[in-house]
């Protein structure tokens, strides 16, 4: 699956990190880094991350 985060929108809330820590992470500078091509088994968690992002910055492109 393909994951895209609109980094223009993203305000580094980190809610996605709570929902899917295997895919999203905050680096030492508190900037979001993420796996753009996670394993299919992560879909549930990535869908949760999409839901909880307050800026609605995350999209899944199959």
């Amino acid at each position, binding site marked *: 699956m393909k994951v895209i985060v609109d980094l223009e929108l993203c*305000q*580094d*809330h*980190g*809610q996605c*990190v*709570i929902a899917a820590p295997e895919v999203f992470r*905050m*680096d*030492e*500078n*508190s900037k979001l880094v993420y796996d753009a091509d996670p394993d299919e088994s992560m879909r549930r968690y990535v*869908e949760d991350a999409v*839901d*909880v992002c*307050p800026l*609605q910055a995350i*999209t899944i492109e199959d």
Partner: protein
Amino acid sequence: MVVAGAGLGGLRAAEQLRAQGFTGEITVVGDEPYPPYNRPPLSKEALLSSGDAVRAAELAASLAFRPRAAAGDVRWRLGRTVVAADLTARSITLDDGEVLGWGALVVATGLRPRRLPQTAPARGRHTIRTAADAAGLRHEVRPGVRVVVVGGGFVGCEAAATLAALGCAVSVVEPLPVPMVRGVGHRVGAALLEHHRAAGVQFVTGTGVSRLIGGRPGHPDADRVRGVVLDDGRTLDADLVVESVGSQATVEWLDGNGLDLTDGVVCDNHLRVEGRADVVAVGDVARFPNPRFDSVPRRVEHWCIPGETARRAAGTLIAHLNGTALPDASFAPLPSFWSDQFGLRLQSFGAPGLADRVEVLEGELGQLPAGVAVGCHRGGEVVGVILINIPPARHPGYRSLLSSAATPAAQLL
């Protein structure tokens, strides 16, 4: 399946019913003419960045949620109000007289802002809950306009910061000694007050608004607000008044069914409405017990709650419809809330409002922009943490203070 209310909670309920395997028909009824959209930006960046000609429809479209694909076959009845429900006959009635039957009902009608009791003057007065509210306010905002914000809660303080950034001369009137007390307590509220004042927002605390002043009688602007009279007799001039004096749950359509509707809809930990297996409530309107804190049912007006309650409530309804057992595990979501005010990003976890004592864990309350972390205690427990301008990479450490509820924060650090 009928969902009453087409906000975040209604959308997430429909999505979760599909995600958890419900294949029957789902109809969502919402009184706003727009598909579900994101409200928090209405007092923050969306109010700031939209021009004074912005239309409500544009604003709602720019903030619209992208529903999950699985919810593509949900039927939306938008611009329609649910006026009554009959829980015995299992039906709801819409404003145009249409009656919809249901096998299960989701209550997701959220809140509406409270208003000041005075009805006149009517013009120049605003609330901020919907895209239409925010557009209506934005139309009247120009640099130099004098705004009185009545009520210094989160929405009021965010609006004050945004309107000041748009060049308005803003005063906030708050009856308590400091703003946002319910959310952050006295010490943090006092620090936020200083920050706002330094940024140029005037605060009048410890007094309420007793009366609105209109234009001269007979004058074309007689019905337009000109100022406010405070409880202590002082007056403040105003071209606009923003009423942010709290909200009340939208539940009148459930009247006549013998439910306790004093403050939202009382639910059990499965989000089932008192004594009903086929009616659940989600989002701001749901008053449910969170065993993380105690057994008292409470409403939680946080953005994260519609999603969490919808997931739980959808599971509850599906178990009911399939005749299977409800999950044993209790539902104990960790409330999380954020707010943006004058360059400060405030993030809270847990329920700081329940605390009897706060403890500064990092930084200084007089230096909010540099970063402050505060632990909120009830007796020996940490019930909340408030983080202001703390980098998100360090949030998990603070959040974990809450998972071991009975340990004082200082021992964990």
